């Protein structure tokens, strides 16, 4: 069990909410195969005659445990009235067990099947109960603790056999279901139903031995039974076992896989720890990323401003420098131009003078002086 749960945990690691491990999809692991000495009952539909004595026996030993009949509820029909068998019935808060009659095609006689809590080896009700109000005892019976029950009725949702019943008209209601007569068993007595069966259709004993008995009956009576002991493997196995001359599904027994109820939900429950462990990391990371992004954005903005200012300043400096250089150049050029102009004018003057005086010697002297300037 521990190992399987661990594997289930592993299989769901890394997923937000997980999926239970399904039969055949993981490495085979040995499941829980029931408490060694647990007792149970074998019901044989080939022997059952639908006399309802088991119902009467159940009622007589459990009369004090169930709420008394009151005005609002319709009175139960006496146990010798077999007309109730014509209608499909189920267990309720005043009847821990009922017998149903099934008409099967190609069979002249109807087949009967007794209906009560199957006392599963890994009970769905106990797995589903959020206050541990159901206990699977090592002796076999699945027992209910009325002092803890909140009345959420999830056990009734979970039970694949539609067994637990509720007292809907009570102000302080409880769940009711067969106890396998655990107090009587502890006293060494038989369960009420088994004790009152006139046709030996109910056999009480150790579950392991009941399986042997059931196999022997199948082997010794060829053609009488279908080769299936209902309850041997269904939902992890039950402490009530059934033999039937017709496929069990015709007797209102659902076709169930071998996967037990706890296995169906262990993966999802295991992933809770994964979520609790990894979500803070992921969310913290997301928070850190968004914070960092904000910070980076703010820093980038700041940098951009600094750069823009620096850039603007640089550009201004360059522009100033260029302007200065240009101004200097223009000044020089202007000086040169003016000098040149002055020189040319001087030359022209000189030429004009020379043309008047006819003396060439002074011309070159004046020219040298102008270039130096």
């Amino acid at each position, binding site marked *: 069990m521990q190992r399987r749960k661990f594997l289930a945990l592993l299989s769901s690691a890394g997923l937000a909410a997980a999926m239970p491990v399904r039969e055949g999809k993981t490495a085979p692991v040995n499941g829980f195969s029931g408490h060694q000495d647990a007792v149970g009952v074998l019901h044989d539909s080939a022997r059952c005659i639908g006399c309802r004595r088991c119902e009467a026996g159940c009622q007589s030993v459990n009369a004090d445990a169930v709420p008394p009949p009151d005005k609002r509820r319709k009175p139960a029909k006496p146990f010798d009235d077999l007309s109730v068998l014509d209608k499909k019935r189920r267990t309720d808060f005043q009847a821990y067990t009922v017998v149903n009659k099934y008409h099967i095609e190609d069979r002249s006689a109807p087949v009967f099947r007794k209906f009560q809590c199957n006392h599963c080896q890994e009970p769905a009700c106990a797995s589903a109960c959020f206050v541990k*109000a159901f206990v699977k005892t090592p002796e076999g019976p699945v027992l209910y603790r009325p002092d803890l*029950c*909140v009345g959420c009725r999830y056990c*009734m949702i979970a039970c694949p056999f539609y067994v637990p019943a509720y*007292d*809907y008209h009570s102000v302080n209601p409880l769940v009711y279901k067969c106890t396998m007569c655990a107090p009587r068993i502890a006293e060494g007595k038989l369960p009420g139903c088994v004790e009152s069966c006139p046709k030996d259709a109910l056999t009480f004993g150790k579950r392991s031995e009941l399986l042997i008995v059931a196999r022997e009956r199948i082997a010794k009576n060829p053609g009488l039974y279908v080769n299936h002991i209902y309850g041997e493997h269904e939902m992890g196995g039950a402490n009530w076992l059934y033999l039937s001359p017709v496929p069990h599904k015709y007797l209102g027994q659902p076709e169930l896989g071998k996967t037990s109820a706890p296995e169906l939900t262990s993966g999802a429950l295991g992933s809770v720890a994964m979520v609790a462990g990894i979500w803070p990391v992921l969310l913290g990371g997301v*928070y850190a990323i968004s914070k960092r992004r904000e910070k980076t954005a703010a820093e980038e903005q700041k940098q951009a401003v600094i750069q823009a200012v620096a850039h603007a300043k640089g550009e201004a400096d360059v522009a100033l420098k260029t302007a200065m250089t240009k101004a200097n150049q223009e000044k020089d050029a202007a000086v040169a131009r003016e000098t040149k102009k002055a020189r040319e004018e001087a030359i022209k003057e000189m030429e004009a003078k020379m043309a008047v005086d006819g003396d060439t010697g002074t011309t070159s002297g004046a020219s040298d002086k102008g270039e130096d300037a």
Partner: protein
Amino acid sequence: MNAQHPSTDNIHNKTTPAFSPGRLIRENKLTALLIAMGLFVTVIRFTQGLGGVSNLDDNYPWGIWISFDLLCGVALAAGGYTVTSAYYLFGLKDFHTAVRPAVTSAFLGYLFVVVALHFDVGRPLRLVYPVFVSQGTTSVLFEVGLCVFLYLTVLAVEWSISAFEWLGWKGIRTVIVRLTIPLTVMGVILSTMHQSSLGALYLIAPSKMHPLWYSPFIPVFFFISSMFAGMSMVVFEGSLAHKGLHDQMDEAHLRDADKITLGFGKACSIVMMGYLFIRIFAIAMDNNWNLLSTAYGKWLMLELLGFVALPSFLYAVGVREKKIGLIRFAAVVTVLGVVLNRFNVSLVAFNYNLPSAEKYFPHWMEIALSVFIVTLMVTAYRFICTFMPVLREHPDYKAH
């Protein structure tokens, strides 16, 4: 300052005349009627038992109080964790004005889920047992109960900021504001757990569930759908609030409302598309294609095409064309779709193999009680938004 907070005047106008129950009832006739009906049902429930007010029986231990009040209630209150994580963790600053309305409605949503559970469980005084008396740790419902209990506490603390601002208790408000990030992270963790676990409740009963709705991935479906359920509810509630509580909103709320609607519209459209794909993958994984031609298959197609694909598309168009009205319509369809899905899982797929004579249909008093719970919630929301800084900022406190 006062111009930005027109509501401060309103508060005085509303409270200064002597408190008169008669006038209050005259002004809220429908609310008064629904609450009176709810009180009537409450009396019968606690004097005659569950059987006196409901059609629940041994085959259908869970009716619409679970399907609607619990499953839908929790999914539609998911706006709390989606909005707070978007704003505080993912840093989507546009959503600021959506935070308080979302936290308020999530808090009230969860509070009234718990109120409704007091009607549904047989012994409401023992509702604390799973947490304090006997912990059934193997139960998915234990996990749901514990998470809802813790998350309701988280939401109460997150929401209390509005109340403390109203009361003017600055010291404790400051302490709680400092806890915002851890509270938000806890909110997401707890929501991930119990939103998915509400789906996981049904994992235990594969033989009772129709295969088209039973999948090992049902916890994932419930979690993912809670995201768009919550966001759509925020959009939907927003549009209602703009009709009924317009005068309680400050400029920032009115200004950002459309931006928020567009943001959630976009998110919903994408998440719903992903959700549609994983729902289809689940059909493929279990090879349930042949079931699609059955009546149940057609019903599933209606759920997936009419209430997931269609609103996803409408959201996308609404966002692209910036049509706020279309997005609000898509939000309504989405909310109805989530309700349909939760009912399909818990009432249509559950016990699908029972003959129709044994099927459940709610008693009128069950419906009346659910309506009563919703009425109480809306009334509480109106009260809070009228007096506390939810749809507006309190002038004395800056945004956090």
